[in-house]
Every structure is written in C-alpha cells, then in structure tokens.
C-alpha cells in the first residue's frame, strides 16, 4: 500500500531527525546541562519514535522505546537521579533505538535479545519504585482497539434509595441475553468536557433497539433553578441479541467518572428491573418528547450555562454563577412537572448531520513557515537547472565575434541570462545544503566509546559544524568520518603513559573541522598522536605486494598508502578499526561523491586527514578536451596548467616511460589516447599536455589531442547507467548532444602507480 509506504518514509525521516536531536541533547547533558528542558526534549524524541513505531507495528522498537521512555519519565519525576551512569546508559540506549529504527527500515531482524541487557538495567534502576508501567511494554502492540477501561458500577444513592449497587451484584442470573437496562445520570463535569448525553444515546441506539425514559423529577421550581446543576437522569433499555455489557460500557468510556451509571441485564422482555430507579414516580406520558428535552431543552440550558460560564473550571463554578433569567426556558419547561417519559424511536437517534459551518470567510490556514519537499523533487529541479546552465554556456560559446559585434542587445541579454542562471543554480543548491552538524554530532559518542575501549584519554573538538554541504554529500560522509576518527583513536593517539613519556598531555585531542574553500568543502580530522609509523607502513605494503621491493616511495606517498585496498597495519584485528574494512573504504566512499582524501603525518606530533568534497554533486566546471576524435572532460579544479607538446620538456626514464619536467620537477606522463585505447591522428607536436594535480599535490601530465575550452557540465553517474570504469569519474551530455566522459585524474594516477609498483 503506497500510502503506508509514504507514511513510513515520513516516519524514518522523522526518526533520523529525532536521533540527531537525541545526540545533540546528550552532548549537552553529558557536558553537565541536566535541566528539565533537555530531559523533556529527550523524552519527547523517544516518545515520538515510539508513537510512530506503534503505528507501523515495529514491536521490538516499541518495546525497547517504551522501557527507555519509562526510565526517562522516572528521571523527569526525580525518582531516578541523572547520574553519569544513567547518562551513559541512556547514550547506549540511543544507539539501540537507532539500531532498531535501522532494522525496521531495512527489514533486517535484530537478535531477539538485542537491548535486553539495557532493558534489564532500566528495570534495575527503577527497582524499589513502582514499575507497574513497565508491564505495559509487553502489551500486544498489534492491538489497535480503543482501550477499554472498566467502569466502576456505582449509582449515587438518590434520596433514600441506597441498595441499587448491591442489588445489581446479587441479581439472579436467569436473564434473557441481550436485554439490558441502563441507568444514567450525568454530572456537571460531563458537560464541562464537551460530552453530550444525546451523543451517548445515539451511540447506544446504534447498538440495538432502544427505549429511553427521562427522570426529571428533580427539576426544581424556577426560583430554585441552578443553571449548572444537573436535574435530569435517564433510564434506558437496550435490546440486541449479541449485546454485551462491555459494548455498553464502551459507549460510556469517555464519561467514566463524570456520571453515575448502572448497567444490568433485564429479567426478560421489558419487565422492570428489580432495582427501583432513583426516583420512581408515576408516569405522565405525553408531557413532552424525550428527545425534545434531551436535545433542545437540555442543550438550551447547557448553552446558556456554557455561555455564562466564567473560565477554567466550569464544573466548580456553580455557586458563583449569576442568577440567570429563565424567561425563554420557562415557556418550555414546567418546573413542577415531575417526570417526562417518551419512547424514543431508534431512527431519531441515528447520527445527526454535522453542525453547520460558520464564518467561512474568516477561516485561514496559519502556522506554515516552511515546507517539506521530497528530495526527488528538488533533485529534478537541480537537474533542470544544471541543464539550463549548460544550455546557457553553450549559447554563449556559439556567439562568435561577428555576432557579438552586430547584436549587442542580444549579448547583453545573454550576459544577464548567465548571471540569473548562476544565481538560480546557487539558490537551488542552497535548498539541498545542510549543516555538517548532523554528522558531526554523532562523533562525540564515537570518541567516547573509543576512549573506553582503548583505555586512552581522548577529547574531541569540533569546528565549523555549521558549514553547509549538499544533503547527499552529508549522507555519504558519516561512514568515512567514523572510519577516520576510529583510525585516529586507534592508531594515532597514544596511551596516556606513552604520551606523558613523550612530554605531551595525557589526554589526546582529535579535532574535527569543516570549512569552505572555494568550490570545495574541506573536512579535516586531525590528531595530536604519534603520527604514521612510515617504516612499518612501508614494510606492510611491501609484504602485501602493494609496493614493489625496488620502489622507494616518498614520505607522502607512504602516508597515502594507508588508503591502499586491503592495507592494515594493525597487527591484530581489533574491533575498533579492524572490522575487516580499512581506510580504502574511506577513499572509495569519498570518491563516490566526487571527493578526495589526503593524509599528512608528522612523526611524534600527529596526523591530519583532509577530505576535499565538492560543494555540489550536480554541476562541475571542466575543461573540454579531445582524445582520438572523442570529447573528454577534465575537472577544472584539478588542472594546474596546459602546455603545447612542442614546448613541453619530455624526458625518457631508463624503464622506457616518459616523464615531463616542469620547473625542476619530474611528472609522470599519461597519454590518454594510449590509456583509453584510442587511435590518434594528431601529430605529436600539436598535442597538448594538461598538467593536473592529483591528491597529495602529486602532479600528473595528461596528453590529449586538443583543448576545446572551459564549460560547466551536469554529471551523470556511469555506475548508475552503465558500470564503473577505471579512470573515468562519470559522463556528461554536451550542449551539442554528444556524450563526454569525465576523466578521473586521481583514479588514473592510482592505477598507474599500481602498475609501477607491481
């Protein structure tokens, strides 16, 4: 059912926000801010998660959330102190809730006993207190019924008739099934809470064949009439073969406590109950129609009462109420009339038409400050704006000098169009932008756990958490960041005694920062640990055949080796950074979103890992080049300069490879035609060198046949539409409809490096 799917999507969306909220609240709570506001926010978040989970039948989640919520409730009440232990337990509980949410979302089952230990600890904490509410956690949650609450049978003794209740209980059992008698007397409170006897009668009438007798003997003389007092009660018989007491009780569910009610089976037919009604007075048929009384007159009284009700506690305010004038009512109610009785036709009690609307014109929608839009819709706009940007740049390109000179107005128009398009693009991108806070806020917990597990002292500093990045980038950022921080804590930061021995503070610091740098976002994970042990890294790399024995990489190249596939220096697989995945996963995840990772290390001082991420994934500034007759694009951000081959200083290295000498530096040369197996007819001297900077400021010289120019392109994923191709980062459709492949400079370099190494 698609509606349900929609709701689920909304729910999981909401859950992820609530979980982030929990992280933030607990970060503050941990820092010592244990005020009621934070506790309430935490309670509400868990409560909302539980509420939605119930709606979808995620019973494991509901069960755990309920137990957690109960604990929080006790903390709110002050029955349990928010000690450090409790905070730690709560943080653990947040993780469990998050795991349950994830399991519900993916449909993967968690172990049946998952979180049971924590649940047991909630109970242990609550021990000594009343834990009655906890029992509710085990309730069958599939139950969608309105809760039925048993109603106390108690008829307020009217006058001297005090035996009803007892008589009810002692009543003989020879009853005809489905014949019921009900005595009902509302209290003032019933009206004060906007309940209405008429509606109750309507409900009852829907259950079976009904007759109603109004007992109005208590209506006093006009002079004694209290506007808020209730003078009327009713005796009802209800007949339906399958009618049970529970069904009748359910009708009165909402007015429990606000009325006197008695329900008993009739001895047979319409024979009188052996219990006398509150005031058994002679009938006076035809006095008035019961409905008329129940509806019009009682309502008239009620309306009057309500209008003149002061405030707050109408039920309490009877005494203070002003003496009303009953001129109108006196016409219809005869104060001396002892009883009104009527047989009410069942049809008359069928649900009435809704009350008419009023003040239609004055109605307006309020409270809307923001809208929620499906990401799909935004993506569509982003894509279209991307296409617009390209069309615009194509138009600009196709304006040749003659046209420019002749149609100045057109040129001006195009310039305005270019500006507006760029502005539109920025605005659209801003819609998708989110602060990195949502990811950063998960890290304090991670660091805390890591510190516990490793026995190290670690503190986390975060900087620039309000820096905004595209939502899809943020979503992809969590895993890599987690890995990098794990790496820093596990391999970087030293044990406290070693740190002291090295003359450092015993607490290590991991600094996580985000900043915008041009068209990129830099996310930096920095630690003040021991730095990368290069000898060991190189040794492992050689052992694993990642680096050939005769190759002597530079320090920076060695540092970068930690991102090589299958690389791990941990001598034994710990459950912290082990887990069978290494930093290569970080690299591939980051590359997937068009970013790059660079690591720098200072022996004994620390390590810095820099993630460079694109601000947006959709549009890329590129240089359009030609290789073997086909167009390719190279991301502009990686290009350092372009040189005509005839002017380039190539040199041969002994192995036969070609290098380019640029300002005293030797740069590896990659002929794209060769690399992509294309035939080139361009003369060697007429070709171009595109000098690119790959990660770690390593340069690579790409040789192409021709350089066409700069432009913007909309990136289309190759993996989604075709498959991953080494050395190609994606594809794009050019203004003339041709497809061009985007060269993955970093990727090219890595493959070459492997070739050399192997």
């Amino acid at each position, binding site marked *: 059912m698609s*509606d349900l799917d*929609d*709701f689920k999507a*909304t*729910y999981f*969306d*909401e859950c992820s926000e609530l979980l982030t909220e929990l992280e933030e609240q607990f970060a503050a709570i941990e820092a010592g801010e244990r005020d009621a506001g934070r506790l*309430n*926010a935490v*309670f*509400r978040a868990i*409560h*909302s998660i*539980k*509420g*939605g989970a*119930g*709606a979808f*039948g995620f019973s494991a989640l509901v069960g755990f959330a309920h137990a957690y919520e109960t604990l929080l409730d006790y903390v709110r009440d002050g029955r349990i102190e928010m000690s450090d232990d409790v905070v730690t337990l709560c943080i653990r509980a947040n993780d469990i809730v998050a795991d349950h949410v994830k399991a519900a979302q993916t449909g993967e089952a968690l172990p049946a006993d998952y979180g049971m230990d924590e649940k047991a600890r909630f109970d242990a904490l609550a021990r000594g207190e009343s834990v009655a509410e906890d029992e509710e956690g085990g*309730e069958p*949650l599939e139950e*969608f*019924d*309105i*809760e039925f*609450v048993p109603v106390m049978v108690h008829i307020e003794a009217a006058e001297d008739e005090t035996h009803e209740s007892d008589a009810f209980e002692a009543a003989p059992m020879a009853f005809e099934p489905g014949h019921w008698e009900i005595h009902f007397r509302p209290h003032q409170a019933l009206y*004060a*809470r*906007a*309940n*209405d006897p*008429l*509606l109750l009668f309507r*409900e009852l009438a829907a259950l079976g064949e009904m007759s109603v007798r109004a007992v109005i003997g208590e209506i006093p003389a006009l002079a004694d009439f209290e506007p808020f007092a209730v003078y009327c009660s009713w005796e009802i018989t209800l007949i339906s073969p399958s009618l049970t007491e529970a069904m009748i009780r359910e009708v009165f*569910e*909402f007015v429990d*406590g606000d009325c006197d009610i008695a329900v008993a089976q009739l001895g047979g037919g319409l024979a009188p109950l052996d219990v006398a009604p509150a005031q058994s007075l002679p009938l006076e048929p035809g006095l008035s129609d019961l409905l008329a009384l129940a509806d019009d007159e009682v309502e008239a009284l*009620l*309306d009057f009462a*309500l209008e003149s*009700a*002061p*405030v*707050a506690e*109408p039920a309490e305010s009877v005494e203070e109420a002003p003496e009303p004038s009953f001129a109108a009512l006196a016409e219809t109610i005869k104060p001396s009339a002892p009883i009104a009785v009527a047989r009410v036709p069942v049809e008359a009690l069928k*649900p*009435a*038409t*809704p*009350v*008419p*609307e*009023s*003040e239609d014109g*004055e*109605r*307006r929608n*309020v*409270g809307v400050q923001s809208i*929620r839009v499906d990401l799909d819709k935004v993506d569509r706009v982003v894509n279209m704006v991307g296409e617009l940007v390209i069309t615009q740049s194509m138009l600009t390109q196709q304006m040749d000098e003659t046209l420019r000179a002749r149609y100045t107005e057109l040129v001006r128009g195009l310039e305005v169009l270019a500006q507006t398009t760029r502005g539109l693009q920025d605005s659209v991108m801003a819609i998708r932008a989110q602060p990195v806070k949502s990811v950063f806020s998960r890290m304090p917990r991670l660091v805390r756990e890591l510190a516990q597990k490793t026995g190290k002292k670690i503190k986390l500093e975060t900087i620039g958490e309000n820096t905004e990045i595209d939502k899809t980038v943020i979503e992809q950022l969590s895993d890599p960041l987690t890995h990098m921080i794990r790496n820093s804590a596990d391999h970087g930061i030293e044990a406290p005694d070693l740190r002291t021995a090295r003359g450092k503070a015993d607490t290590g610091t991991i600094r996580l920062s985000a900043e915008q740098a041009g068209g990129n976002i830099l996310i930096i994970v920095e630690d003040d640990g021991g730095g990368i042990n290069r000898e060991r890294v190189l040794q492992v790399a050689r052992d694993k055949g990642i680096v050939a024995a005769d190759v002597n990489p530079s320090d920076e190249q060695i540092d970068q080796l930690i991102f090589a596939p299958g690389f791990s220096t941990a001598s034994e697989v710990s459950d912290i950074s082990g887990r069978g995945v290494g930093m290569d996963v970080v690299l591939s995840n980051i590359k997937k979103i068009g970013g790059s990772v660079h690591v720098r290390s200072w022996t004994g001082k620390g390590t810095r890992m820099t993630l460079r991420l694109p601000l947006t994934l959709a549009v890329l500034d590129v240089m359009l080049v030609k290789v073997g007759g086909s167009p390719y694009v190279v991301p502009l951000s990686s290009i350092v300069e372009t040189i005509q081959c005839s002017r380039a200083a190539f040199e041969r290295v002994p192995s036969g490879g070609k290098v380019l000498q640029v300002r005293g530096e030797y740069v590896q040369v990659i002929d794209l035609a060769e690399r992509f197996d294309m035939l080139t007819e361009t003369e060697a001297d007429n070709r171009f060198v595109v000098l690119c900077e790959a990660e770690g400021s390593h340069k690579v010289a790409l040789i192409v046949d021709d350089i066409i120019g700069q432009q913007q392109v909309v990136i289309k994923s190759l993996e989604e539409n075709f498959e991953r191709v080494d050395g190609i980062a994606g594809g794009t459709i050019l203004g003339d409809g041709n497809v061009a492949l985007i060269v993955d400079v970093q990727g090219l370099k890595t493959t070459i490096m492997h070739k050399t190494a192997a």
Partner: protein
Amino acid sequence: MTTLRVLTVDDSRTILAMLHHTLSNAGFEVLQAEDGKQGLDMLKSGEFDVVITDINMPVMDGIEFIRHVRATGQHQSLPILILTTETSQDKRDQGKAAGGTGWIVKPFDPEKLISVIHRVVH
C-alpha cells in the same frame, strides 16, 4: 452536507500525516498544528468541530493546551480528543481534568478514529 472541521495537534510528522490521510479520506476538513501554542493560534483563527491533540509536545503540551482552550470561554462545547500512547489511567485522568472530552490510543485504527470522532461530535 457541510464538512466537519478537525484540528489535529501533534509534534510527530508521521502521526500528523496519518491523521491527515485518515480524516480527509473520511471527508473531514483537516487543519494541523505542531504544538499546543500553534493549536491555540489556529483555534483563534477559525471554527472547528473537533480537536485531536497529542500530550507530549514541545512549546506547549497537550494538557496545557486543553486548559487554555477551555479557559478561553469560547470553546466550552468543543470536543477535544486526546491522542496518546499513554495507557495509564493517570495520564488519562490528567487530560480529563484539564477538560478533555475523550481519548484515542495510539496507534489508532482509522475506523475506530472516525467512530470516536462521531461519538463526540453532533
């Protein structure tokens, strides 16, 4: 036939979405608020036939919301249903004491929800 106007007050988007779906399918006109404060503002701006409110909400919770509604003096006969996951009598009594008309236990069953509304609205 005139349409019943329902105001739903809940801080959970999921619940709001489900209420909206269920109620508008049943032919009600549905307006929604995210907390008690917003709910009060909306009550000031128009007439409603029934209100459905959550208890646990930021800014102004459901109990306080109901108290405020009843205190205005204009909404004494407006049925207010409390939508709650609380099954405890205690919470229910609190809601009732504030002036709540009835309650709906989360998760709600669409048919039951509609029938409960009919139970309190003319």
